[in-house]
């Protein structure tokens, strides 16, 4: 079997050399042909725009009058805008809160569902957890605006039933961002949950059993077996959640289009959107987009670097 496999390869090699007199070895052009649609689209919509964004960041341009070279003017202006720091702070708070709540909640829910005995109930819980993730942010954001409404909202009523007076979520600067964090939890937890559940199911049962036979207590099994075995999954979920959360735009733009009370919900992508597509400061917005890129890159590299320390490699 191995012989017949090897033979056509060997036989083909000299023929390729003999035939391909030109630039390409025989068959090379096929590779480029298969790749060409992807490469053309990549140049037009990813690599090209990436380079153009970097160039634009050094110009001031409103799309109507010709662009003017501005040096690092956009960057100095950007870094002296207090609203940028507000937006960055909000975004980091949001991203950090998402990572903590989604990872913690997702892992707990996955461990719980993984132990459920009743199949129908388990199906119900898995389905309902995942339902909101399927729905578009537009629908979710509109729905939750009403759910949290101070006069006829669901939350308002049931919180009142148990004697809690809920805040006026979207007019109170202290509560607008937490409200968005909660809505994001409802919308996105299904995603983290599914990834955690898949990760849990790759942990061999024998490991748990062996640990228990050796007399480990449940919390010891969790800390010494489950968590280390789950660490690659947890790490992946952390990176994906952070990247997604850092780019949060849809719900904040829909629920608080003006940035919320005291700019308490403006995020960095919303700031970029306002500068680029509402006041048409194209160069300035490009500079902001570079900042977003650099921060995301730095955090991801940091996470990868950290992961080498504590992620358990199999």
């Amino acid at each position, binding site marked *: 079997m191995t012989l017949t*496999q090897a033979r056509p390869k060997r036989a083909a090699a000299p023929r390729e050399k003999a035939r391909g007199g030109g630039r*390409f070895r025989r*068959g*090379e*052009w096929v*590779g*480029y042909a*298969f*790749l060409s*649609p*992807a490469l053309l*689209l*990549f140049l*037009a*919509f*990813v*690599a090209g*725009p*990436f380079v*153009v*964004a970097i160039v634009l960041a050094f110009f001031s341009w409103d799309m109507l009058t010709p662009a003017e070279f501005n040096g690092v003017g956009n960057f100095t202006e950007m870094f002296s805008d207090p609203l940028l720091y507000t937006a960055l702070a909000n975004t980091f708070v949001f991203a950090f809160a998402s990572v903590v709540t989604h990872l913690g909640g997702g892992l707990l829910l996955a461990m719980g*569902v993984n132990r*459920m*005995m009743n199949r129908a109930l388990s199906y*119900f*819980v898995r*389905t*309902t*957890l*995942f*339902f*909101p993730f*399927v*729905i578009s942010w*537009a629908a979710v954001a*509109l*729905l*939750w605006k*009403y*759910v949290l409404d101070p006069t006829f909202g*669901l939350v308002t009523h049931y919180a009142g039933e148990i004697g809690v007076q809920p805040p006026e979520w979207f007019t109170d600067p202290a509560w607008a961002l937490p409200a968005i964090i909660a809505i994001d939890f*409802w919308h996105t937890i299904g995603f983290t949950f*599914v*990834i955690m559940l*898949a*990760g849990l199911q*790759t942990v061999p049962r024998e490991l748990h059993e062996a640990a228990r036979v050796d007399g480990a207590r449940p919390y010891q099994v969790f800390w010494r077996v489950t968590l280390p075995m789950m660490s690659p999954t947890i790490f*992946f979920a952390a990176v994906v959640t952070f990247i997604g959360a850092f780019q949060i*735009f*849809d719900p904040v*733009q829909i629920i608080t*289009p003006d940035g919320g009370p005291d700019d308490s919900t403006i995020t960095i*992508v919303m700031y970029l959107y306002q500068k680029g*597509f509402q006041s048409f400061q*194209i160069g300035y917005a*490009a500079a902001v987009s*570079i900042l*977003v*890129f650099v921060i995301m*890159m730095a955090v991801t590299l940091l996470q990868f670097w950290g992961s080498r320390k504590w992620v358990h490699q199999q």
Partner: protein
Amino acid sequence: MTVRTRSRRRVRPARLLLELLLVAVGLVMIAPLVWLVVQSFTEEQAAFEIPPNWIPKPFTTENFTGVPDAIPFGRMALNSLQVAVIATVGSLLVSVLAAYAFSRLTFRGRDGIFLVLLSALMIPAQMTVIPVFVLMRNLGLIDSLPALWLPALINVFSIFFFRQYFNTIPRELDEAARIDGAGHLWILFRIIVPLSGPALAAMAILTFQAVWNNYLAPLIFLSTPENMTLPVGLVTLQSSHGGSPVVVFAAITAVVVPVLALFLVFQRSFVASIAQAGLRG
């Protein structure tokens, strides 16, 4: 033996409690959606009552007929469908071709190009959207649907995902076909693609969902209501057209319920696709 019976006796009530707790979580998760659907079938005067009504009484479908009066809902749904279908089919085709080149063909610069593509995964969409907007304006594609699906045709993650999957398909299969005189296109579409069902389904579902739900792109590229897709359409219904809450809820229901029904049908492969993308990526 004694240990076992002891732990069993102790675990049973705990397990029951756990199941009840999780079911409660499930009920809380689904409550806003149930409330949504109930309000949209309730007559305007009776909707949004305190305490909340969980049964549509008096029942009406009038709220739904109010939707097309405010926004061209059918048109928007067709636009959404058109963009999502073209983007999904197109990006699968582009990705499958590229993945085949990376997995099965040898040519100069192959690994270098692959690395460049992979590193582009780090570029956030917000960084490319401004130049793409300028490009679309120069191409005269602003306020047209190609502005949405054209950039969606390139999906680096799906190229990477397919390459990984193709690498798990034994090469003996295509070598055998090659000896029989098959070309690369034949091998790709008659051998590799039919063997990649789960991967194709996963990527198709993820792409379709992402494009269907996209809010930023239509917000930036489209302007007239007739060219709009559903997510922005919903928001304009609520904000600028001042639709009454029941009509807004009817519109949300009309968007959400078919998606949820579709999800129930494809739940297994949808959830598997997320898990798969997660575990591989």
